[in-house]
C-alpha cells in the first residue's frame, strides 16, 4: 500500500493544534513509516503539492494569503479536516471581528503602543493585507470533517488519522468533542462532559 500523503497547514491560530499533533509522541515515529508528510510547517516544502490524501488545517482565515492558500489546499487535497477551534469557529482569532474591521486593531498595536510611533506595516507582496473579518475555514472552502477543541488532544488527532488510514468514514462527534474542549478517545465517557475543566490526576 502506498504511503498516505499527509499535510498540515497553519493559518491564523496559535500553533497549539500543531503542538497537539506532536503530542502524539512516539506515534510520530510510526506515522513516519505509514505516511509521508508532504507539506507542513514542520517540514521544508515551500509549495503546497498536488495529490494530498488528507490535510489538517489549523487556524482561521485572517488575511489574503490565507485565502489564497486555503483555496489551493482545497483544490489539491482529497480529505480536508478543519483542525481545532480557530479553523472550526474562528475562536480567539476571530474575537477581533467584533471591533469592526482590521484597522482599529492594527492602530492599537502599531501606532498607539509603539515608540517611535511608526505607523502600520504597509500591505505588500511581503506583508499580506488583513481581512476585515476573520473567517472559519468552512466559510471559504468545503470541509470534509470537523475536529473541534482548543486544541484537540493528541490521542484524538491520532484517532482521526487512524480512521483516515483505514479508510473508515470519520465521525468524530461520537468522541464527545466540544468547542473549547479537549476531545478524548472513546472509552472515557465516565469523565465529565468536557474535560477542559481542570482535573487533578489523583
Amino acid at each position, binding site marked *: 500500500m502506498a504511503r498516505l500523503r499527509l499535510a498540515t497547514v497553519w493559518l491564523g491560530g496559535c500553533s497549539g493544534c500543531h503542538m497537539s499533533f506532536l503530542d502524539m509522541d512516539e506515534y510520530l515515529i510510526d506515522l513516519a513509516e505509514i505516511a509521508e508528510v508532504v507539506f507542513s510547517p514542520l517540514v521544508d516544502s515551500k509549495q503546497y503539492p498536488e495529490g494530498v490524501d488528507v490535510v489538517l488545517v489549523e487556524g482561521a482565515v485572517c488575511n489574503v494569503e490565507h485565502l489564497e492558500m486555503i483555496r489551493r489546499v482545497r483544490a489539491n487535497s482529497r480529505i480536508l479536516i478543519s483542525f481545532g477551534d480557530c479553523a472550526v*469557529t474562528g*475562536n480567539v482569532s476571530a*474575537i477581533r471581528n467584533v471591533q469592526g474591521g482590521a484597522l482599529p486593531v492594527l492602530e492599537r498595536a502599531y501606532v498607539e503602543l509603539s515608540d517611535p510611533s511608526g505607523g502600520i506595516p504597509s500591505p505588500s507582496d511581503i506583508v499580506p493585507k488583513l481581512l476585515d473579518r476573520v473567517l*472559519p475555514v468552512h466559510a471559504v472552502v468545503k470541509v470534509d470533517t*470537523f475536529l473541534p477543541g482548543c486544541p484537540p488532544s493528541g490521542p484524538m488527532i491520532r484517532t482521526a488519522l487512524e480512521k483516515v488510514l483505514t479508510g473508515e468514514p470519520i465521525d468524530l462527534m461520537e468522541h464527545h*468533542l466540544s468547542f*473549547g474542549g479537549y476531545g478524548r478517545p472513546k472509552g472515557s465517557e465516565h469523565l465529565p*462532559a468536557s474535560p477542559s475543566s481542570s482535573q487533578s490526576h489523583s
Partner: protein
Amino acid sequence: MAVKTLSVDGQLISAREGQTLLEAAREAGISIPTLCHLDGLNAVGACRLCLVEANGRLLPSCLTPVAEEMDVQTQTDRLQRYRKQIVELLFAERNHVCSVCVANGNCELQSLAMRLGVDHLRYEPQEPECEVDLSHERYGLDHNRCVLCTRCVRVCDEIEGAHTWDVAGRGTHCRVITDLHQPWGDASTCTSCGKCVMACPTGALFHRGSSVSENVHDRETLHALILAREEKQWLV
C-alpha cells in the same frame, strides 16, 4: 387526580392530569433536550429546544399539558434538525468563545452542541458588540455569552422575590438588565444572593474572579432552595 394515557415515541405511558409533556416524558425515562427550562421555575418556552410533535403539531413540551390518547414523537428527524439549528443560531447570535469562557466545561449550551452533534456553525456569526458588567462586588455579567433564556429573571422573581432582573430592548438589542438598567452594582433591589448565577446555563453570569473554565453553577444548592421554598422540604 385523573390519569391520562398517551403514547410517547410509540411507548404507552400514563401521566397525571396537569403534568406537562416534558415532565411525563422524563418520568418515563425519555430524555428531551431543554435550555431555558429549570425545575421549580415557571416554564416560558423561550428556547424551543424541547419542541415535540404532538398529534403532528410542533409544540414546546415544557408548556404543553398531557392529554388523553395524545400521540407524541420526541426524536423525529425534523425535530433533531430543528434542535441542531436552534443551537447553531444561539451560538451565532452572540459571541461565544468556549475555549476562553469561564463556563467552559460547565455550560449547558456547549453540552447541548456536543449532544446534538453540532461540530461547526452553518450560520454567519452576528458578532454584536456586547458589554461586560463587573460592577457588582461578587458577580459579573457578560452579555456576549447570554442566550436570553430568562432563568435569571425568573429565579430572582419567583424564588428570591427581589425581581432585580428583567429584559429590555428588542431584536439584537435585547438584553437582560438589573433594576432600571443601572450597573448591577448599583441595583438597590439586588440581595447578592447569587441564585441568578446558579441558574445561568452559560458563562453570562459568573462569580467575579473566575478564571477560564472555573465558574461552576451550583445547581444543587439552587434545587435545595427551590425545594425548601416550594415544598417546605429541607434537605439536611
